[in-house]
């Protein structure tokens, strides 16, 4: 049976479907078809020509796809970049973006994803939205968008070059040569604490 289904392809607002029950689109269509009805139409006679489209009396409200953490991260960073926003809001959005990236590190399952994530976290360590110019925020936004689509090695190289281009760096200084006595003592205390499992 071919029927001209009226499949809402975008979530509709509450205003458009004030009385609708929230249903799963697949379940809704399955139940309609199981009842022998064309979607939103009268019971079928079994004759394809009888199937006619009728506008639904009440349009079903489609369950909106839940945004992924990366969708939220992109939105938060876009807010942080928006200069028309209050600085507090921008700062909070930037911190939320970082928190999301940090939480994603716990479930990063591809090497390139993890590497790009680590690069972004290191490049923005202890930074606030106000510390970064628009170009840098644009690079971070592009990089976060790349995270959404299984980044490859070439993406990491591009982000790394773009960060360098705006004077940012994802390098963490970890050389142990030349540390002062004070820093050395502090690190030794940290090592001792870790060795005793009391970090």
């Amino acid at each position, binding site marked *: 049976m071919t029927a001209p289904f009226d499949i809402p392809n975008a979530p509709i607002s509450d205003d458009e479907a004030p009385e609708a029950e929230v249903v799963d689109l697949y379940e809704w269509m399955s139940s309609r078809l199981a009842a022998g009805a064309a979607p939103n139409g009268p019971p079928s006679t079994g004759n394809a020509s009888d199937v006619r489209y009728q506008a639904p009396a009440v349009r079903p409200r489609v369950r909106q796809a839940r945004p992924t953490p990366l969708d939220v991260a992109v939105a938060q960073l876009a807010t942080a970049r928006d200069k028309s926003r209050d600085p507090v809001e921008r700062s909070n959005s930037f911190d939320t973006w970082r928190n999301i990236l940090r939480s994603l590190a716990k479930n990063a399952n591809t090497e390139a994803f993890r590497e790009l994530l680590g690069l972004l976290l290191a490049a923005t360590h202890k930074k606030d939205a106000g510390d970064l110019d628009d170009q840098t925020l644009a690079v971070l936004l592009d990089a976060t968008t790349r995270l959404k689509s299984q980044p490859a090695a070439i993406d990491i190289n591009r982000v790394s070059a773009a960060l360098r281009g705006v004077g940012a760096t994802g390098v963490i200084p970890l050389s142990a040569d*030349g540390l002062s006595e004070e820093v050395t003592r502090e690190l030794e205390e940290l*090592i001792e604490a870790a060795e005793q499992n009391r970090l």
Partner: protein
Amino acid sequence: MTQHAFAVFDTDMQIHRFCEEPRVGAAADKLRFERKPVHAVAFSKVEFKGAYIQRLALLQNKVRDSDSIQEVFVRVKNSGGRGAQMMLAQLIRFLGRESLRGDWSDTKAILLTHLDAQIGEAWRWFSTNVDGEVDSAKCTRAKEGPTRIGNGWDVGIPNCRKQNTRCRVSQFFKGNTETLKHVIAILEKESSISDELQRILEIARDIVNTGVYKWEGTTCRTVGDLLIGLEAKDCRLFVTSNAKEHVLLSQGIGYPLEIFKNAILRLK
């Protein structure tokens, strides 16, 4: 002889720029811009891989295979010594001890994410944070960066063999026979020289006397200062913190030398 307009930063100078201590890291970085244009020798990448990148990979491997932070530190100490332990401690301090308290699996994931990124980024940084590269010796090993392998990185430096190397270092040394004679003369005048200079003296004599440089294996890595010094022969200035070898080598080879005195402590 045509003198180049650029200064050359030795491998240790590039590594000092990775030091969080301002009198070392920031000072080396400042010098890099004051001496601009600055180049690095391609062979320095081999030394950098051995001295810095391999330690990062060791940390990553030990973090991945351990069941607690306690175990990580013990294993890092056993395999990488105190220097590697200090590197891990620095990373934890950078990230914030408080943020790593709690469940080990979460801590592990955060550490792995950062170590993974640092291996790739440090390598990219090394080549891109100078104004150019000197590569007269065209070392095959210097072209080999860390490569992805499974969940980790292959950061090995293979022994040079005919099967994996098209060695031009041999030709490079032979092309510098006259300079090597000067180096020999300078080193032979000294009553006491370091182990590396002793090794350099033996290799230089061998090349001058037989015309052969025994490049197979890891020979270049044992005479890295000589190779880098020869590559920097015509530079405007050679900047290093390694006075022990380069004060004498610079006299034999003839490059102007600037000693960076800020870095003293060396961890093994």
